[in-house]
């Protein structure tokens, strides 16, 4: 990997939900194409960190700079557009629209971005093939297995060829075999498109697919590279 400047940098993030701080001065950075695992016990604030980094949540304090632009200074619609165009998302479960077929689900982000239906579905089919789930393209999410569902979700996250994929416990609801398969395909596919991946997980074997690890504990982050 050629050394490049960081793509997404966060410093001193603070975010409080109710009385308890979820983030208490967390830092993070990721370079283009890098896979960074965010680990930590549950309730440590790792999901909140992901939400902040993706511009879903605005932190109470701290800065997030994506590609030279200050994220917290953007309007909601600008951030939404960023998420549509340059970010991709995989969550633990319940993220596919149950009424749409798998193909339509994968095409959805492209269509939100203004791509025509036919072109979007063509691109979506290619993604499904890459994730080895093109056989379920005309089924609805309720009719396929959990592992297939997560692979469809990965295909959807990669559909717009995003520069960053945010994955929040993508294998959390899967058994280890299916989890390994999803992780394998996720990292392979994102490496092939050059996407950076922010991978939130509490499982070391999942985190082992990353290039680097950041630990979040009590709302504070530790970059293990710097400790060592």
């Amino acid at each position, binding site marked *: 990997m050629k050394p490049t400047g960081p793509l997404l940098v966060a410093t001193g993030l603070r975010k409080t939900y109710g009385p308890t701080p979820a983030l208490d001065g967390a830092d993070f950075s990721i370079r283009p194409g890098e896979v960074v695992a965010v680990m930590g016990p549950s309730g440590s604030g790792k999901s909140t960190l992901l939400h902040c980094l993706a511009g*879903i*949540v605005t932190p109470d304090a701290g800065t997030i700079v994506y590609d030279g632009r200050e994220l917290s200074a953007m309007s909601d619609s600008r951030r939404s557009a960023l998420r549509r165009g340059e970010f991709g998302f995989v969550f*633990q479960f319940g*993220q596919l*629209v149950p009424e749409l077929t798998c193909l339509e689900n994968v095409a959805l*982000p492209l269509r939100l971005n203004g791509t025509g239906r036919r072109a979007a579905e063509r691109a979506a089919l290619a993604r499904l093939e890459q994730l080895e789930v093109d056989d379920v393209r005309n089924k609805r999410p309720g009719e396929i297995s959990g592992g297939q569902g997560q692979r469809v979700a990965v295909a959807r996250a990669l559909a717009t060829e995003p520069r960053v994929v945010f994955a929040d416990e993508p294998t959390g609801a899967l058994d280890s075999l299916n989890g390994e398969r999803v992780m394998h395909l996720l990292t392979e596919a994102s490496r092939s498109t050059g996407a950076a991946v922010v991978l939130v997980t509490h499982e070391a074997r999942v985190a082992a697919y990353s290039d680097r690890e950041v630990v979040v504990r009590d709302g504070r982050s530790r970059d293990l590279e710097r400790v060592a």
Partner: protein
Amino acid sequence: MTPARTNARSWARDLTLGARLAVTGGRESWVRLLLTGVGVGLGVALLLLTTAIPNALSARDDRERARGDLGYTQATETHGDAATRALLIAEISTTYRDHDIRGRLLRSDGPRPPLPPGVSDFPAPGEMVVSPSLKGLLESDEGELLRDRLPYRISGTVGDAGLTSPNELAYYAGSDEIEAGQNGVQRITAFHPYGPYHGDGLDPVLLLLVVVVVVALLTPVGVFVATAVRFGGERRDRRLAALRLVGADRSMTRRIAAGEALVGAVLGLFAGALFFAWGRTLAGRVEVYGQSIFPHDLDPSWTLAALVALAVPAASVAVTLMALRGVVVEPLGVVRSTRPTRRRLWWRLLLPLGGLALLYPMVGQGHDNGEFNEELVIGGTVLLLVGVTALLPWIVEAVVTRLGSGGVSWQLAVRRLQLNSGTAARMVNGVAVAVASAIALQMLFTGVEGDYTVESDSDLTRAQVQIYVRQGVSVDQVDRQVARSEGVRRATVVSVSSLGGRRGNSEDVVDLTIGGCSALREVARLPSCSDGDVFVVHGAENYADTPRIARPGRMFYADPGYGEDDSAAVPWRLPLTAKKAGPRPDPTGWENGGILATPSALPREVVADARAQAWVQLDTSVPDAVDLVRNSAARLDPLTTTITLTESTEVEEFASIRTGLFVGAACVLALIGASLLVTQLEQLRERRKLLSTLVAFGTRRRTLGLSVLWQTAVPVALGLLLASAVGLVLGGVLLRMVAVPVTVDWSGVLTMTAVGAGVVLAVTALSIPPLLRMTRPDGLRTE
């Protein structure tokens, strides 16, 4: 313990458990329970009202008949027992602002005159007994002007027995001036002179209206109730699944669900009783049918009320069990029975067609005084309206599966509808039925109203009030007292009599109108006029024979009399100099014919015997001008008739029924809207996680909002279309039944569909803030 006892015990236990579950589900379940209660309550109240209205109407009619006094027959007895009970009575009803006041002048014509119902002491001359409402009005500031018109001392009140409604304004005044034989004075020996009345009840058309109104309001409420007990169905199913996990068997879950439904129904019964009691007290104050109803008349028949109390909970349990039929509640979750088979059309069509078949035989019976078979009317109307709920799911499914591609919001909505068109259709059913019945009613009313509205030809620019005085009151008096009264800009006074061609014979009679030149110009086109002129009107509508009878030079007799008694007849020869005049509608639109004469052309007796009348142009800058004029007229003579001219006289019952109908339909729609909102929010909450995810990957909130809108708008549009069609058909058939030409009241259709659409828009608008709240990223946090 016998098996039966065990059974009863487990029933009781499961029902109680269900009831407890229904009330312990937090705020949301309370809202649901409240809506169910209100919905069922409205239905129950409406049912109770329906059972009570016939009683109320007949009680009212009985009292109306009991005080009947004016008729075509005069009591002529001058000797014997009957004569001791003779009474002179004259109608002096009046209008004050927009209140109608029933008034009678009484004068005893024997030692034991009969007392009107509700009156305990015969009013002495200069005194009056008044209804409580009139007393209140007279004593209030608002009644200030009226006190001038009723210059009698209040000596007592008229009891309920003498009134048709609690807010009726009525009085009986004593007089020593009226004489038998005067215009408007009758001699009677008893009130309620017609004996017991066995009439044919309500006018069949009115009866039809009442029946249809009740059915049309009740059916949407019924549909609403059927939907309401399915509120929160999915959540309940999950709850039942949890109970299955801890060991409840299938029949237990059914009983528990029944218990939950019962709570809503019982709550609804209480709410209904409350609504009814409240409505009953309101009935005394609210004017329906132009009058209010005594609360004590509004007595539901108790057997019917008991039937309602049993039927409503039973029905709600039945609906719940029906809804559970397609669902298998397993310990680990809820299994909906396999993919529903495609909906079939044929049996769905049977309902509305059956309804039409029931109604059709009665087409055209309205004006033959035929009676409508109430059962058939109710059955047919209900079948047609319920047919909407049967057809709608099929139509929604058929249309939605054919809907093509569009934007993302459209795609999201259409796919959701395709997967679950039944829920969507159920949500809209209530609105559709309500709109269909409202359209039908609207049509029926507009159609029938045409029948009951009297178009008048009055030219309101020339006069707004017309006054008739009793014979014997002179034109001069009218001129002095009325024409110069406050509030009058201009008054045209004429007097009217008739001339006969022969003494003692009523053949060859022509009308005679007497007045000054300017007054006569108001009733005919005169070539020229000066005092002493006489005119014959040629060409007036309805006076084709005037030219034949009124030949100049012919001898006439004023007030020719009938039979032998010809002493009053005054002879007069129509002068040869009589000029021809052209017709001109008078301010009331009537073209006068006959002979017109200035007073000096006639013998004094003829002028004195003619009855004066005046057309008054009001000075609208004076407040209460009409009532000032009415006061002046009453001061002139209590028996003076004052008529306010209007462009058209709408029969008042219809105006109030229409308002009531509109309010009722709006209430039903609002209720349905509230339930739509609850269902909508429930669905949104279930999709909270998904919505948050969609927002996370950059879906615009506008897209989500639009998809919610489409998702409601598509079934609602279909529902309104179907509702309009069914409503128009039903309205058309009903109009044909009362033999009124079928005209479509498009503005009514538009109004009702617009109201329906407005409800949906409001529901969508109201669900947007929660939608936005739910799509906040908090939804992504794991619970």
